[in-house]
């Protein structure tokens, strides 16, 4: 798990640079990896993962970008069927950047579904429970409510 913190200064230059790095990584490596096969897919995924990790190290104070980078790392590990590593990255989003609610929601749901599909239901239910506990609010958006409803259904199984 990579560390993020808020010790660095949040200057406009750092905000822009971090954002650009994240965008380029997503656009040039992560998204194309979904269409690639074999070694090319692996190369693109590894390059994307390396750049996301680098971003998190260099710009730990950039909460939104860091949260997205960690979740993207989780997605890459999940695509590589490395479930434990993926769950670790997904969990880090909520641990390190709890204010990034949309990212936290996606990360927890990602971890939960991944574990559920792997048959690790008890572990999955911990994440579904976290989702329901935190996001079951009357004023949430339609999409969040749907995620909560789906999580409840899983918990009831």
């Amino acid at each position, binding site marked *: 798990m990579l560390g993020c913190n808020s010790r660095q200064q949040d200057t406009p230059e750092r905000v822009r640079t971090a*954002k650009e790095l*994240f*965008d380029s990584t*997503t*656009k040039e490596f*992560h*998204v*194309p990896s*979904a*269409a690639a096969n074999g070694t090319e897919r692996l190369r693109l995924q590894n390059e994307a993962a390396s750049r996301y990790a680098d971003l998190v190290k260099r710009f730990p104070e950039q*909460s*939104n*970008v860091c949260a*997205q980078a960690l979740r*993207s790392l*989780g*997605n*890459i590990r*999940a*695509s590589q069927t490395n479930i434990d590593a*993926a769950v670790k990255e997904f969990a880090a989003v909520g641990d390190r950047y709890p*204010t*990034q*609610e*949309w*990212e936290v929601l*996606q990360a927890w*749901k*990602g971890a939960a*579904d*991944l574990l559920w599909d792997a048959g690790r239901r008890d572990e999955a239910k911990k994440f579904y429970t976290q989702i329901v506990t935190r996001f079951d609010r009357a*004023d*949430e*958006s*339609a*999409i*969040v409510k*749907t*995620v909560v*409803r*789906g*999580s409840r*259904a899983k918990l009831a199984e």
Partner: protein
Amino acid sequence: MNMAMKVSGKVGESVSGTRRSLTHRLTHSLTYFAALAVMLLTTTTHARINVVTLPDRDTVQLTIYNSVDLTLVKETRHLTFRKGMNKLEFSWANTLIDPTSVEFKARTHADAVEVLDVSFPPRVANTLEWRINSEFAGDVVVEIQYFTSGISWSADYVAEAARDEKLMNFAGAVRVNNNSGEDYENAQVRLVVGVIRLVEEIAQLARRDEAKDKAMTDVLKSKSELGKKMYTRSRGARAGGAVGGLGMEFDGIEARQIVKEGLSEYFLYTVEGRDTIANRWSKRLPSFRAEKVPVTSYYKFEKERWGDNVMRYYRFTNSTPSQLGNEPLPDGAVKAFRIVSDDQLYSFVGSTSVKYIPVNEFVEMELGSDREVMVKPTLMDWQKTDLQFDQQGDVKGWTVKDTWQFEVQNSKDIPVVLDIRRNFAGDWSLTTAAKYEKVDARKVKYVMPLAASEKLTFTYEVITRHGTSATK
């Protein structure tokens, strides 16, 4: 983009194949589109996979709120559902779509279609997947709504004055700029004029057109609530004939109507018809055209503001008697032309910008200087009199008398109105045979109609009392 595909075979193999196809399409779409795809659920290992259809959008509606860089997108598609579980993907990669605002709704067979869950598949970036249970097999009209940034609009106007500059044709257009990362084909465009201060007010506006459309209201409410909670996200990663017969063209489109609705301080314009608003393109759409709008060609001279230049203005009122006044006019650039010959040759008069013009508002468009109207002030005499001294012999009061002569010439072939303004300081009094009006304590104006090619001269004498000579 061809959105239809057929797959058959065993689910275990076919889903894999389907996913490859889907992945391929998504990769293409991720670059250019927010993609929608229907996949089949792998409910039974050996079930046959039915026809999967992913048609183009049937309708797209864009409601653009310039003041908050927010556009509500509402699109409908016909999707073929199979009975049981269906999956629908939506990707916002490389677009400025706000994924927290995305909402799905079945517009037909709504009672039979239920969204059970949303997941975020890790194999593709910035994609969500709805799991939808359908009790109905067949064609369903679905509606997807979301907010996006990156779409803006601006207004511009063209004034075509008749040769005598007493009437003009006045046409407005809007230019929609799309930098959202997404193409919108055959979109209906709605524009909100006015400043939106609260996101909640957007909901009020949106409800205006579709009071019964709860889905839109909900998504807007959702957006507002999310805004309250300060959800943050990274946007980039997801990511008629003119006077004299000159016609106007707008991207080759004949002028169409824009339906306008008043909403207290806001105004909702709906551009008639549909247009494709491609990403990284801007499109100019005709808004309105008014003919025979009464206009006054008005000239101003004020040395302190414009030096020796005489400034030209077109004046009109945004009112019904002026063939306008159906709606407020948004801020925008104006280009003005005038017919200058019997064969309807037009000349460029000038350009300017106008601020938001409410209904019944008087408008004065400054169109730059015009050398065909000349004002030449000359100081003919200057006297200092009435000197008063203190005990040390220093001057403590005095009076200055200036005599000015103004030569005024209209070289145009039409009559004009000229407004000359003079500023004075201190305790002053004016003597002149010319008719003038006092604007304020320090300014007077001479407003004089000038016939075509007329030249005239007038003088005034101003006495200014200084120091102890001043009486006020």
